[in-house]
């Protein structure tokens, strides 16, 4: 039996929650330091940190379109993701609903979806450039096409998994199709839709970096490419961390949002 008092118990629990990640992070930085010691072109963790402090001391400077602060680049990427992802949600979620609700549309669209879903998002870039003629909408198009699949598939799965009991209630009460959708299907499917949204935004954020490297302009992906041309490796490493942290934040944000809609978890 533990003889610790409650506050000591809590301190122990907190320590157990914090210590392992710190050890992991420490080992990671140690490994990095060892690599940079043997490979002179890779900056040390210390040098990278100094560079990061300098970079983030003025993230929003603007010296013309080819030299803007990292803050502007991040915002530009986020904006592209928001537009492409938003359009995908606007089309993908209703489409998923229709596919889940009506067998006919499922049978009609399933082969196309299965065929197109495994295609690398970047393979769509030339088509986007060809049709849209410009780099900016082409990048958004790539985000759109890569983030629409998880939303269609998860929404459709959610609709087909609505508990039969609820549908029986709908039949017994003679609910109209409109009420079935608004009162039963939408709320019952929402947790699945949120899963789709979370997966989609993860994919979108993954893809934007690569897409921007190819399309150029302003954005975190192009910024990395630019720093590669400048041979500023410290900046590239910083960018990797920035992309990782923003991706993590988006994930956490949407997980929290999803929890609010999950009625089974209450």
């Amino acid at each position, binding site marked *: 039996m533990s003889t610790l008092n409650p506050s000591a118990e809590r301190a122990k629990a907190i320590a157990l929650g914090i210590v392992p990640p710190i050890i992991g992070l420490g080992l990671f930085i140690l490994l990095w330091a060892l690599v940079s010691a043997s490979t002179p072109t890779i900056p040390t963790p210390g040098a990278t940190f100094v560079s990061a402090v300098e970079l983030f001391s003025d993230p929003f400077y603007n010296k013309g379109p080819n030299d803007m602060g990292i803050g502007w680049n991040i915002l530009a990427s986020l904006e592209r993701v928001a537009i492409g992802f938003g359009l995908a949600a606007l089309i993908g979620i209703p489409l998923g609903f229709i596919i889940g609700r009506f067998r006919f549309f499922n049978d009609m669209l399933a082969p196309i979806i299965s065929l197109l879903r495994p295609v690398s998002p970047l393979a769509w870039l030339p088509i986007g450039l060809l049709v849209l003629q410009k780099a900016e909408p082409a990048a958004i198009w790539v985000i759109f096409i890569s983030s629409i699949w998880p939303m269609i598939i998860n929404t459709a799965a959610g609709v087909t998994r609505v508990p039969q*009991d609820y549908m029986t209630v709908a039949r017994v009460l003679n609910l109209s199709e409109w009420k079935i959708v608004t009162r039963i299907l939408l*709320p019952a499917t929402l947790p699945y839709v949120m899963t789709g949204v979370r997966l989609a935004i993860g994919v979108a954020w993954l893809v934007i970096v690569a897409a921007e490297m190819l399309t150029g302009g302003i954005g975190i992906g192009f910024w990395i490419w630019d720093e590669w041309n400048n041979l500023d490796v410290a900046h590239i490493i910083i960018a990797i961390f920035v992309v990782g942290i923003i991706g993590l934040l988006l994930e956490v944000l949407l997980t929290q949002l999803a929890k609010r809609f999950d*009625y089974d978890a209450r």
Partner: protein
Amino acid sequence: MNAYIQLDNVGMQFNTKRGPFIALRDVDLHIQKGEFVSIIGHSGCGKSTVLNLVAGLLDATAGTLLCAGREIKGPGPDRAVVFQNHSLLPWLTCTENVLLAVEQVFGKSESKTQMLERALAALELVHLTHAKDKLPGEISGGMKQRVGIARALAMEPKALLMDEPFGALDALTRAHLQDELMSICAATQSTVIMVTHDVDEAVLLSDRIVMMTNGPSATVGEILHVDLPRPRERLQLADDAAYNHYRHEVLTFLYEKHHKTAA
């Protein structure tokens, strides 16, 4: 004589992968207005199928089903169903769950305030006014079942169809809800069909008990008239000779005449 709910030569056949399965045959059942009828039988005897046919959730493959002189075609709000697993929508409060049913029946003829009053009155009938703004996930199983009953009653149905309504509850809660159901039925003069596998419940609540033979191709075996005066008190009835006689009749049917080897 025309019955309120009338089943004549009703048969039900399901088409399964292994070929046709005859669940019910030649079911004749005439239920009067205001009557409380229980359907009892071993599991798999098709008693829930009978209820689903009356509810309109299934289409009979033979015979005719009438409710108030009209043929039963599909589900309708004139036949309210209380499900064993309550089937409340977890994202709506108790009031909203009841209101959903009320709007379906009275949406065209009444104002929103009138319908809200109906919903609240139904919740009061099952003594749940204090929980009206709670979500189903926040209340107990017995309370959920009472919301389910309130939802059904609020529709002012011609018939109340209950599919093992108290089967998932503990014995004490079940007894409490049976008593409540009796007083509600006395107050509203409801016509009730209840599926059950509980002999005491059937005898205590019913005017008639329909005993089903074992499936496949199950049918009505015997019908027992329970001629006990109302209001019925479970404590007094425990020592009542007539009550125990009826109980014995049902038990005899179930365990001697139509004994089912363990499934």
